């Protein structure tokens, strides 16, 4: 899709503002912390502790790089040992065999690691497999790399490789003194932290966090989950390789176990988790506390029996994780309260602007002509037929009701339209274009937006951020901001814009679902039971909202059990039963259809429905007009 590739290229906001935002950020503070360590090490400590500081910065860097995929995207990688090793071996091989600068090997290592990451991530991310599958695949990668390298003669096999000691200087990444190592590693840390901060302030920050918080909602917001995860994983892997190249030169010797062993990832996880993942400061603080502590324990408890220091270290570790579940950074955050770094400011404009809601590629069909056509669409799960065969068309500008008993296949049908999974048979086209088999974000970008029966929210987002993120794919920051403002005003969530998504009441969550769908700029809106569980008054509000959306030209398909609302709202109704259409037509026709009554409505409800359509103000026929 063209719009997909556009996401990457666009400049976000004025450079000056961006720079200021980065400088005031967590990443800048973390980088500052790194340089404080450098200053302390160089002015106050002896060579040994400077050496410890260098290794500490290596680990700090590794944790920060891992945190991008593990903390921000929420995909736990056990494979970073492999990327570390790839960096180390590339740099070692090129420099010892061809006399090339280790920097060259480092760059090659970055490339190779990124390619490796893309290869390992390809299938689990493409097919949306579980986190655990990804984690175990990366673990397998780590072991495969460890044993794989062990058998390669050119890489020294299990004997390892020695760096040449002849040359020194920046080009050889080898120094007589210790301090240049410290400076180089601090510089690597700084660059990485600032690059990550810039990325997090950009659209990717929102995309990654949304992906982590809720994949289904992120995909429905038009985010390409596959690209989002692959990008983060590749960046994280490439960054990790740099540390490997540095380590090889610093220690002067590498062997498979030392750079590819499991202890690499165990250390990374340890420092990151104790520090606190998903924040830039967490892994830095975690490393700065734990690494020296481990070193002190090793040295202080050396005279005791072998293994004592690890025992004490292990017990301390277990205690910290049990007592401080949010990590050290969680404690700090609570202590600082409101003085914690504000999230990157969104400044979504207030006010119900008269501007119309955004529209993607307004479907090029005439009012009343079919915008969406489903032909003999079916879907099986394993051996179970969820949807037998559905023929259905949605006409532009109408509100179509989709009703039927539970298990009739209504939500399955929505999932097919929204791209959650492909149909097993049949075809779906939107304004003449085939859409079956597309991914959710592609459907969203073509103008199909949906809500979920069970509301899906982004736990770490405010209401405004969630709507902004849905507006973001394929648009600039400014456009997305303006859209978010308009949509919030339209669905009546303006007053709640800065509240965390998780704190909304049920009816507000339903509105947020609709807002998120609207922000993507749909021409076809799929509403899945947005009224279930709402009080009649709230239902009335939703009915009014849906009507106003239709008035703007958005075509709506609605699955609903609240019969009086369906009867009142819909222009046309399609009834599904056992995975097939059993009736369709105008509301009053459908509500009198004996098959529909038999399969779905029941006698009493049918009376209510009939009463509602005929406008008879029976006690159940509360029409919204009476309320005004």
């Amino acid at each position, binding site marked *: 899709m063209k719009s997909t590739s556009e996401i990457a290229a666009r400049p976000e906001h004025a450079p000056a503002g961006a720079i200021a935002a980065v400088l005031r950020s967590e990443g800048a503070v973390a980088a500052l912390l790194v340089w404080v360590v450098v200053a302390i090490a160089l002015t106050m400590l002896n060579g040994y502790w400077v050496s410890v500081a260098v290794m500490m910065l290596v680990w700090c860097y590794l944790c920060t790089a891992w945190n991008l995929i*593990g903390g921000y995207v929420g995909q*736990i990688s056990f494979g970073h040992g492999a990327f570390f090793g790839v960096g180390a071996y590339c740099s070692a091989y090129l420099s010892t065999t061809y006399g090339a600068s280790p920097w060259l090997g480092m760059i090659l290592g970055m490339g190779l690691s990124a390619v490796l990451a893309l290869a*390992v991530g390809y*299938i*689990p991310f493409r*097919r*949306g*497999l*579980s*986190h*655990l*599958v990804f984690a*175990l*695949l990366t*673990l*397998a*990668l780590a*072991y*495969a*790399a*460890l*044993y*794989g390298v*062990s*058998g*390669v003669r050119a890489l020294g*096999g*299990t004997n390892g490789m020695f760096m040449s000691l002849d040359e020194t200087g920046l080009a050889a990444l080898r120094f007589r003194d210790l301090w240049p190592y410290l400076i180089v590693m601090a510089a690597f840390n700084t660059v990485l932290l600032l690059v990550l901060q810039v990325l997090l302030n950009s659209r990717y920050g929102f995309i990654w966090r949304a992906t982590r918080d809720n994949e289904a909602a992120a995909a429905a917001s038009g985010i390409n989950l596959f690209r989002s995860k692959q990008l983060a994983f590749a960046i994280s892997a490439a960054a990790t390789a740099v540390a490997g190249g540095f380590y090889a030169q610093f220690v002067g010797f590498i062997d498979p176990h030392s750079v590819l062993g*499991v202890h690499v990832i*165990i250390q990374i*996880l*340890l420092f990151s*988790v*104790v520090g606190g*993942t998903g924040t830039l400061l967490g892994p830095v603080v975690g490393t700065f506390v734990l690494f020296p502590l481990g070193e002190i324990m090793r040295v202080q408890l050396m005279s005791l*029996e*072998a*293994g*004592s*220091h*690890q*025992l004490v*270290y*292990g*017990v301390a*570790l*277990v205690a910290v*994780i*049990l007592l401080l*579940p949010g990590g050290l950074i969680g404690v700090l955050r609570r202590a600082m309260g409101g003085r914690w770094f504000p999230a990157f400011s969104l400044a979504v404009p207030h006010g119900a602007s008269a501007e119309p809601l955004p529209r993607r590629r307004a479907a090029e069909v005439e009012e009343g002509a079919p915008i969406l056509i489903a032909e003999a669409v079916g879907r099986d799960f394993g051996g179970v037929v969820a949807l037998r065969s559905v023929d259905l068309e949605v006409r532009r500008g109408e509100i179509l009701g989709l009703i039927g008993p539970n298990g009739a296949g209504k939500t399955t049908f929505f999932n097919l339209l929204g791209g959650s999974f492909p149909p097993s048979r049949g075809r779906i086209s939107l304004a003449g274009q085939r859409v079956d088999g597309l991914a959710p974000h592609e459907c969203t970008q073509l103008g199909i937006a949906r809500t979920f029966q069970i509301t899906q929210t982004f736990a770490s987002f405010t209401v405004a951020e969630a709507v902004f993120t849905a507006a973001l794919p394929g648009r600039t920051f400014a456009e997305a901001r303006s859209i978010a403002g308009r949509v919030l005003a339209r669905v009546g969530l303006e007053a709640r814009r800065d509240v965390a998504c998780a704190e909304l009441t049920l009816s507000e969550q339903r509105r947020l679902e609709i807002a998120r769908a609207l922000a993507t700029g749909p021409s076809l809106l799929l509403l899945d039971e947005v009224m279930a569980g709402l009080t009649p008054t709230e239902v009335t509000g939703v009915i009014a909202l849906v009507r106003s959306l239709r008035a703007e030209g958005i075509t709506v398909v609605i699955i609903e059990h609240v019969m009086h609302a369906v009867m009142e709202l819909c222009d046309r109704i399609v009834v599904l039963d056992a995975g097939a259409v059993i009736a369709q037509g105008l509301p009053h026709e459908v509500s009198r259809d004996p098959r529909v009554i038999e399969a779905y409505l029941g006698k009493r409800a049918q009376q209510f429905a009939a009463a509602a359509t005929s406008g008879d103000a029976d006690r159940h026929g509360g029409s919204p007009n009476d309320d005004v």
Partner: protein
Amino acid sequence: MSLELLLQAAVSGFLMGGIYALIALALALVFGVMGVLNFAHGDLLMIGMYGVVLVSAATGLSPFLAGIVMVPAMMAIGWVVFVLLIRPIVGSAPLVQAQLTIGLSFVIQSAALLWFGADLFNVPSELAASPIRLGAIVISLPLLIGFVVALVASGLLAWFLSATVWGYRVRATAEDPVMAQLCGVPVQRVQRWVFVCATGSLAIAAGCLMGFYHVTPVVGLQFSVLSLLIVVLGGLGDLRGAMVAALVLGVAEALTSAIFNSASAPAALYVLFGAALLLKPHGLLGRGAAV
């Protein structure tokens, strides 16, 4: 390479796989019932293995019997670990669980190093000397006994889960602990007993292993990783899948080692694992809850 060699590798790998299954089933059950992926699983097994060594040395029992003797002790250890460490992290983020159990693994490993030193221990047994010969193929008796014991234990577990009221309760707890509570199932007690029994079963597995293998303070990690691979390959929460995965892994391990004859051979095993997982992300039997 001769067919005979491959056959020998396959047979001994298959028997080994049975013992892997017993180890992995305990992990799968704990993961299923309380959602905790225990990275210290292999280290708990290692405690059992040291226990078997001690019991055998003190009483002269065969390792298999010593394993049975160790069951109550391992259950007690399971109890303590559950109350102190596992219960607090039921329902926490996977990363926290991973890290805490990795921390526990650290502690167990270091403690073993302190108490037993880095030397290896085993239980020499007469059984190893008298294998069964089927033509050119040799079946190691301890391995065979281990396999049979593992099979019986797994069968008992399957029967318990699918045919007893407490088995239903365990499965109900695994699926929806809150609802199980509302049904009057004492969920915490179920979780505790599952962990205690799973840890206890490791004593049996330890007995089977010590029939032909040895223990050092670092063997825990390899069994943890192995069980993780099996549980995921089997399809999370699919016990029968785990059984199949364990047998497949045992055979694959022996075959790759026989075929490749290089330091890189184990890499082939992990590549195979990756490929299998990609082709069958829902577990080998395709019934697990991988997505």
